[in-house]
C-alpha cells in the first residue's frame, strides 16, 4: 500500500478512451500520452495549439459537463475522462469577391437554419464567439465576422456539434477569403518603388567578402557606391 501512496503523490490518473493513464502533473494530455507510449490514440499535428488535429472531449472529475479542447493545450487533471474527438474534413467552398447577403446564402444554404443554441461557441477551443458571428454573417456584418475568425484553427468542432447543419468555420474561411480577394492591392501596397536595377551588379558580381562589405554599407547608407 505504501508504494501505491508514493505513486499517487507523483502521478495522477486520467482515463483516455476508457483506459487508465498514469501521468505526471504539469504535462499536457498530448505529452502524457507520448510518455505512456500511447501517442497513436490522439492525432498530433503542430503540438502548439494552432493546427486543430488533437481535439478531444473531456469530462472533469465530478462534473457532468462535456468540454472540447486541444490535447496539446490542456493539462492533465486527476480523474478527467478523455476521448479523441476528431472532426472529418468537408469540401471547401470557393470564395466570392462579390460578397453579399445573397452570395453567402448561395454558398451556404443552411446559414439561416441557426437556432442560436450556442453549442458552437461552447466548443470552440479558441474562444471565438461563433454563434454571435454567425448572426453577424446573417445580417451582412462581414468585416466583424472576419475579425471574429482571425484565430480560427479549422478544427471543425463548431460544425460537428451543429444540429442545424450550419458550417460556421467553413463560412468564416469563406468570409475572410472573399473579403481578402476584394481588397484593392494598389491601396494596400502604396507606391512601393524599387531602387534602380544597376545596384544588383554591385551586390552580385563580386566575391563573398566584398559582397558582405557592400551589404553592410547598403544597410547603413541605403546605397552602394563602389
Amino acid at each position: 500500500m505504501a508504494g501505491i501512496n508514493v505513486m499517487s503523490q507523483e502521478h495522477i490518473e486520467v482515463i483516455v478512451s476508457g483506459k487508465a493513464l498514469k501521468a505526471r502533473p504539469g504535462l499536457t494530455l498530448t505529452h502524457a500520452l507520448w510518455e505512456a507510449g500511447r501517442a497513436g490514440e490522439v492525432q498530433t499535428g503542430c503540438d502548439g495549439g494552432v493546427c486543430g488535429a488533437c481535439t478531444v472531449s473531456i469530462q472533469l472529475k465530478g462534473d457532468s459537463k462535456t468540454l472540447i479542447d486541444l490535447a496539446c493545450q490542456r493539462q492533465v487533471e486527476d480523474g478527467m475522462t478523455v476521448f479523441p474527438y476528431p472532426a472529418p474534413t468537408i469540401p471547401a467552398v470557393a470564395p466570392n469577391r462579390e460578397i453579399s447577403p445573397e452570395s453567402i446564402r448561395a454558398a451556404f444554404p443552411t446559414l439561416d437554419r441557426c437556432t442560436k443554441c450556442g453549442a458552437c461557441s461552447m466548443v470552440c477551443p479558441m474562444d471565438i464567439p461563433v454563434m454571435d458571428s454567425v448572426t453577424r454573417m446573417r445580417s451582412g456584418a462581414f468585416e466583424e465576422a472576419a475579425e471574429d475568425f482571425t484565430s480560427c484553427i479549422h478544427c471543425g468542432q463548431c460544425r460537428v456539434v451543429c444540429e442545424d447543419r450550419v458550417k460556421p468555420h467553413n463560412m468564416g474561411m469563406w468570409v475572410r477569403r472573399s473579403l481578402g480577394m476584394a481588397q484593392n492591392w494598389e491601396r494596400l501596397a502604396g507606391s512601393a518603388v524599387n531602387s534602380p536595377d544597376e545596384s544588383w551588379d554591385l551586390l552580385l558580381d563580386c566575391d563573398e567578402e566584398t559582397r558582405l562589405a557592400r551589404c553592410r554599407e547598403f544597410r547603413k547608407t541605403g546605397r552602394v557606391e563602389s
Partner: protein
Amino acid sequence: MEWARDSLKRLEDSREARRNAVHEELSQEEVDRLLQEHHPDHSGKGRSIAVGANANATAFPIELADLLESKSRLPDDYVPAADIETDVLIIGGGGAACSAALALNESGLKTLLCAKLRLGDSNTVMAEGGIQAALGPEDSAQRHFADSLVGGHGKNDPQLLKRLCEQGPEGIRWLTELGCLFDVTEEGMFRLRLGGGASVPRVLACRDYTGLEIMRTLKDATRLTTTEIMEDCPALELLDDGAGQVSGATIWNRQKNCLQSVSARAVLLATGGAGQLRFQQFGTSNHVGATGDGLVLAYRQGCHLEHGGSFQYHPSGSCYPEAMSGRLVTEAIRSVGAQVVNNEGHCFINELTYRDVLAAAIIREVREGRGIQTPAGSCGVWLDTPLIDIKHGAGTLQKQFPGIVHRFAPFGIDPSQTPILIYPTLHYQNGGVRVDEWCRTEINGLWAAGEVTGGLHGTNRLMGNSLLDIITFGRRAGESIKAQLPERKAATRSAADRFQRDLQKLSESSVQGPQLFPVEMNMNATPGQ
C-alpha cells in the same frame, strides 16, 4: 509565480531606467566571439559522415548524422511497382507544398500531394510574427537583400536570395488575391513592422497568427484544385530509374497500413525541417513532423546538403511552464518593445539584433549564472512583455498578439501583466538540399522547395524570410516542373540500394531512417505492424 518573486522585483525596479535606453550594436569581433563561445552550432558536438555527397566534409549535428547514415525503412524484399501513377508527386503538406500545387493547377498535369500528417499540419501554420516583402517607402529589393545577406553572415546563395527579395511584393500580391488578410494601418495600407536585423520596417503580419492565416488560405485554395491529396502518408524512399533520374517514391499509407509506390515524372520535396530531432537536448518550436525526412531521402539520391550544420535556435522559446517548453514566443513582441532581461534586472543586449547573436547571448547569461531557475529545473531569462502595454497603451498586447495571450491563459499567466521566461528553442533548419533558382536539385526529376533546401538563408535566417521562401520557391518549383517535365521512367530502388551498399562497407548502423516521428512520441514507425 511566487518562486520568482525576487527576480521579478528586480526586473520591475529596473524597468523605468531601461525602458527607453538604446543598446549599442556589438562590434563584429564581439559578435564573432559570442557565436563561437555560446551558439550551439559551434559547440563542437557535431560529426562528419562517411558516405554520400558531403562525406568527410560537413559536421552535422549527431542526431542528423546518424539519420544520414541510416538504414532504409523499406523491407529488403520489397520490390516497388507502380501502384499509383501521377505526373507530379509533391511530398509534404505545408506552405511550400500547397504553393507548388496551386502553381500546377490548371496545367493539365495530374498532381498528387502526399502529406505525412494532415494537409497543413506543418511549421508554416505555426509561424507567428510575419512575412517580409520590400513594400515600404524607404525600401527596395536590394535593401532586403543586403539585410538578409548580412544576417546570413554573407553565406547566402546570392542568386537564390535575389529571387526571394525581387519577388517579395509579388508574393504578397498573390496571397492577397487568394484572400489573405494582413494587418493594415488606419490609412488602409499594409502595416509594416521592423524585424530583427532589418534596416527598415518590412514585416507584414496577421496579428501573431500570420502562418495560420497563410496556411489555412493555401489549404482551402489547394482543396479547391484538382490536386489529389493523401494524408498520413510519409515517404520512406525516393525511387529512380537506375540512370540518375528520380522517378517516384515509396510511401507508407498509414490509414491502410501498407506500402505504396508512386510513379511520377517529377518529384518535389517539400518536407520541411528537422527541429524535432532536438539537437543537444534543445526544446523545439516545430510541429511533430519536422524530423528531417527530406534531407535523408535526397541525400541517398546523391544530393549535396548546403550548410548542413547550421540551425536556427530562436531566442524566445518559452521555458515556463513546463507544458509550454520550447514553444515559440514571436520575435514581433520584441519589435514592438519587449526587452530581454536577466536575473539581475539588467537588459544585456539589443533585443532586435540577429537571432543567432541574441540566442548566444541568452545562453551566455544562463551559463554564467544570470538566468532564472524554474521549479521544473529549466533556466531562462525574462522577456519583459508588460512593457508593451506600458509603452503603447493598455490592451495593445491582447490586440496585436492574441495568440500568445490565449496560449498562456490556461496556465494562469497573463503576459500583459507578467513577463515570460524564455530560452532559445530549435526553430529552423538554415541549411538543406542544394537547389538552383528554379528549385532543381542536382538530380534529374527531383525538385525541392522550402525549409528542406539550403543556401538561401546562409547560416542565419531573418524573421519573415521563411514564409516568403515557401511562397516564392514553392510557386517557382511548380512553374519549373511545368516547363521541364521529364518523361516517365521506371521506378526502381537502385540509387537507394547503392547508397545502402556503400554504407555497409563503412559502418553497421542500427538506426532506421527517415525517422518520421520524434523520439519523444514513442511511436512505432514500422509499416505493416
